[in-house]
């Protein structure tokens, strides 16, 4: 199968040796009948399938190519990079140690970390605030690659990101730790600084749906 552009080129180049249509073909009646047959075949097949679906039959055979978006999701590929989240320890504090690797490697410079002391001497540091500007993010995934602690992931399966202003694209640490917890109507917050105790009290977001599923990610609360 050659490319469409090649086919079109051939058609233009070979126009002079185009086949003469016969008298019957030049009435265009057979071509019209063919076209009507094709579309009516689609019509009756899809009508039958729609009725069968209502009756609970042939669920596996789709009657249309439509994905009813907010209710149904397109199946995502396992390697798809979706919106970021920060992973958490058992006690609810962020796994992040504020090493600044992601902030340094980020080519769009959309990550802003404010580091603070962690009382546990075994843990290097803890982010007081961790902000990510999705309006700048280019979804390269370098932050995930760079992270030595598996603290940032891009697997929330959320790709329907929209906002009325640039401020609305701003993710603070509360939203990053519990994806889906911020209401759409809430005003954006920047550089929210939380203590360890406040981290533990943040709501626990349900685990994101596994990669490759077609269920929408759930919302906290």
């Amino acid at each position, binding site marked *: 199968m050659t490319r469409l552009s090649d086919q079109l080129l051939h058609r233009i180049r070979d126009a002079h040796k185009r086949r003469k249509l016969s008298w019957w073909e030049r009435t265009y009646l057979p071509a019209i009948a063919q*076209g009507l047959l094709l*579309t009516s075949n*689609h*019509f009756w097949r*899809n*009508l039958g399938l729609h009725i069968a679906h209502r009756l609970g039959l042939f669920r596996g055979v789709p009657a*249309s190519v*439509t994905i009813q978006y907010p209710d149904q999701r397109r199946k995502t590929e396992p390697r798809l990079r979706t919106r970021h989240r920060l992973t958490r320890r058992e006690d609810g504090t962020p796994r992040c140690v504020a090493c600044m690797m992601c902030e340094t490697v980020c080519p769009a410079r959309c990550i802003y970390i404010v580091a603070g002391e962690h009382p546990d001497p075994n843990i290097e540091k803890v982010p007081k605030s961790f902000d990510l500007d999705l309006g700048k993010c280019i979804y390269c995934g370098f932050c995930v690659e760079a992270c030595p602690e598996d603290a940032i992931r891009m697997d929330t399966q959320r790709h329907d990101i929209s906002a009325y202003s640039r401020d609305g694209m701003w993710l603070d640490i509360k939203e990053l730790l519990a994806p889906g917890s911020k209401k759409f109507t809430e005003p954006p917050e920047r550089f929210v600084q939380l203590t360890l105790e406040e981290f533990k009290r943040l709501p626990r977001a349900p685990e994101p749906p596994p990669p490759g599923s077609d269920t929408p990610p759930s919302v906290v609360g």
Partner: protein
Amino acid sequence: MDLWINLWIKLGVSLLVLGGVLNFAGMQAWLERKQSALMQDRIGANRATFTVPWWLGGAPVNWVLRKLGGLGILNALADVLKLFTKEDIVPAQADRFLHTLAPWLSMFFALVAFAAIPIGPPVELFGRTIPLQVADVNAGLLVVLALASIGIYGVILGGMSSGSNLAALGGLRATSQMLAYEIALGVSLIGAVICYGSLDLQAIVERQGLLWWGWLPNWGVLLQPVGCLVFMTAALAETKRVPFDLPEGEPEIIGYFAEYSGMKFGLFFLTDFIEVVLVAALTTTLFFGGWQVPYLAPDGFRFPWGGSLPVSHLGYVILGLVAFTVKVVAFIWFFMLIRWTLPRFRYDQLMHLGWKVLFPLSLLNIAVTSVVVVLASR
């Protein structure tokens, strides 16, 4: 006394026809969306719905409304609501009276044409014969054709009275197209008239109930295949829908109703749908046996293989009405299929088809039909 009863009967029949036609026309807005969706592997309209408060029926009514909304039927209602609440703009340059008159004229004549079409066999009720036909004219075919051609006035008035050059050009384009196909439309029917020997549509339908060799219904499409093809093509061009939609071309060509808004535009739109119903009804009446059910005589079915099944008079009438409706719906479906399958003609192709193909073909059809009829009557 007799006059009043006749008047009430006429009123009832006309309400039946009018209600049926307007409902078919309105439902075409739904059919258009849903059928095109199914043909193109889409789902189509399925979201418009509304809920009623408890004192209007509450939950059970809402359940039905949700189901109807899921089928997309309520979209037609939403459309009409939208059109009625839109601002009605009359351009400053326009002739206010003619600008308002045009859509009404165009719809009125499309609706009146249904008066001559028989929708069922005559009913014998309380010793009285009621023809299921609003106007029992003996030149019904001419009446329908005349009213259909007056419909052009709505189009050309809409274009000329808008005070816009583009709308005027659209009106002219529409007029020259409709005139070109009007001729082929009329001439293609002469063959059928020769075959049936009558202009009365009821008589034409009754003659299509005869059988050839005892089994083949005497339908017009078998007697006049070329006439049927030419008539359907020309009639499709008269409805100004897609393969022939150069007068309108809603998405890109500016048509004669460019300066119309709100329900006046809606009336032009509705006229198109009414004309589709009219063409479907005419095709049924003239070429596909009208209200005739094959092998159904007034006293019951008489099958060619010998069996018979008695049917009461009321059953006969109801079967006739149902047959007519089913045929009309099938043709509306078929025209919609054509509308969503074929691409639009170029204007020179349109004129070529109208003047150089369909018109000579219909003349040839008359000649051949006349010779055959004369030879057969020897």
